[in-house]
């Protein structure tokens, strides 16, 4: 995996996006918008950054990931399937009664999920606990989490932010998926969390701002996080909700609705064309 190129990562991200569309289409529900916006971040984490082994999903010293914005489960499942945690074909079972792929990630159902999440604001606290656990074991592993920009309206996020800095959890990285949209509108219209970088900085975090779809910037930010001692790192990633599917981009109504058959075809064709272009 070490030698994986940015071009390869881009192809994987395209496959991950197809998995998101496949899952939500088959489920007839789910959250494609905020899944598509974190695809590059998740792809980089699971294919390049994290010390993980799909064959040993409970290894003690593996790096941990917490999807604090748990509704983006289709993206997490798709990246895990593409990484070899389970067959890609299983993505079609998303949200079905007998499926391991619950609407929000559940560690009870699926090996490789480091903690159940989905109720907003709670994942980052669990990530703090994992990072603290790692510290007790002599910095045994690193912990990554992704928050939504709407999610940080939850007060618990700031309880956790205060705590992570107070405990100097420099093995913790929190991405904020700043796609600017939440269910009721733009984040500014609803209850503006802006300015986000200043807030995390004021809470004592190392803060990095990036384009969340650019692998070079993701890589540089994660390297900086690793080199930063004594404080946790917040990576504020500017992203596009619905990224990669033309009619879903920047459309708030794709937060929590699934494509119908016609939309599914259009989306898959767009992504296949992009993949062919990259492979050609």
């Amino acid at each position: 995996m070490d030698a994986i190129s940015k071009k390869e990562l881009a192809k994987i991200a395209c496959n991950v996006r197809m998995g998101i569309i496949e899952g939500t289409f088959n489920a007839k529900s789910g959250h494609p918008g905020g899944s598509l916006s974190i695809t590059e971040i998740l792809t980089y984490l699971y294919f390049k950054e994290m010390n993980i082994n799909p064959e040993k999903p409970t290894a003690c010293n593996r790096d941990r990931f917490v999807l604090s914005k748990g509704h983006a489960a289709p993206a997490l499942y798709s990246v895990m399937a593409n990484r070899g945690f389970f067959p890609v074909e299983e993505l079609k079972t998303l949200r079905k009664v007998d499926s391991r792929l619950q609407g929000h990630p559940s560690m009870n159902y699926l090996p490789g999920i480091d903690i159940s999440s989905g109720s907003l604001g709670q994942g980052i606290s669990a990530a703090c606990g994992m990072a603290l656990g790692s510290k007790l074991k002599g910095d045994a592993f690193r912990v990554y989490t992704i928050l939504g920009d709407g999610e940080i309206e939850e007060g618990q996020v700031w309880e956790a932010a205060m705590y992570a800095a107070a405990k100097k959890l420099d093995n913790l990285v929190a991405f904020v998926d700043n796609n600017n949209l939440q269910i009721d509108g733009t984040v500014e219209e609803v209850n503006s969390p802006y300015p986000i970088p200043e807030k995390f900085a004021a809470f004592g975090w190392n803060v990095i701002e990036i384009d969340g779809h650019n692998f070079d910037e993701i890589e540089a930010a994660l390297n900086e996080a690793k080199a930063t001692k004594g404080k946790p790192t917040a990576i504020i990633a500017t992203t596009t909700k619905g990224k990669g599917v033309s009619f879903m981009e920047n459309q708030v109504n794709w937060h929590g609705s699934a494509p119908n058959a016609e939309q599914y075809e259009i989306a898959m064709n767009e992504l296949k064309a992009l993949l062919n272009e990259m492979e050609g």
Partner: protein
Amino acid sequence: MADVIKTATRDAYGKALVELGEKNPDVLVLDADLAAATKTGAFKKAFPERFFDTGIAEGNMMGVAAGLATTGYTVFASSFAMFSAGRAFEQVRNTIAYPHLNVKIGATHAGISVGEDGASHQCCEDIALMRSIPGMVIINPADDIEARAAVFAAAEHNGPVYMRFGRLAVPRIFDESYKFEIGKAVTLKEGSDVTIIATGLMVNEALIAAEELSKEGISAEVINMHTIKPLDKDAIIKSAKKTGCIVTAEEHNVVGGMGDAVCDAVCSEYPVPVVKVGVEDTFGKSGPAVELLHFFGLDADNIVKKAKIAIEKK
């Protein structure tokens, strides 16, 4: 009357944590700025590197406890019952209980006996809240011996446990030989006319009530229901068959508490009259703890009165 040892169950909790910490290096303790009151301060002193204060942020504390538990530790998280079961209900439900993590919630200052602090801090709803969570174990010890035993049993149990401790010093009922098992009720006195099922500090009141009743020729059976979930239904049904009526006694709202759990148990299998002693669906108020307990009818006198009512209903 011989000198009776009186200890608050929260004190026994603090001491038991230290004892447990000495035996088990994987035990961690969290608190939310109440270590002096919850008595986890004793653990903090003994094992500072295994104690974490999350500050006044109970929701975050429960999440941190969950995260730590996923890395292999047995985590005790403490605050007052009001904030553990109340404020942090959803964190307990979603991040601890749903993934069935090894977090033990040490909730102190439960019930009316908080005393002078008043209604805002007198949690009489925690049993109801915790009962409604699948897989949650609820233990409400009656004295210091049982509180210590509960801590050790909770540590052995795989999964979430809610332990309910009090602020008020209460008389010791058991001796060092007392055997405690999660989910196994203890019959403290055999009887034939009425069953008194009590939990927490009401167990001692139940024993006093049984004595009073015997003076009037009424034979009361007394059961200590230290574990409210999973409930020992067999013990309840067995006793109901013997006495034909039940009085429940708890320092909790009569809505959703142990009394309701007992009603659930008997109504489908062996319906008998059940009369509840508890806080009558009202908020508490300020006052000295013992006076308040009498004010709210959480005493032996009320149990005696309710026992007679239960018998009449047979």
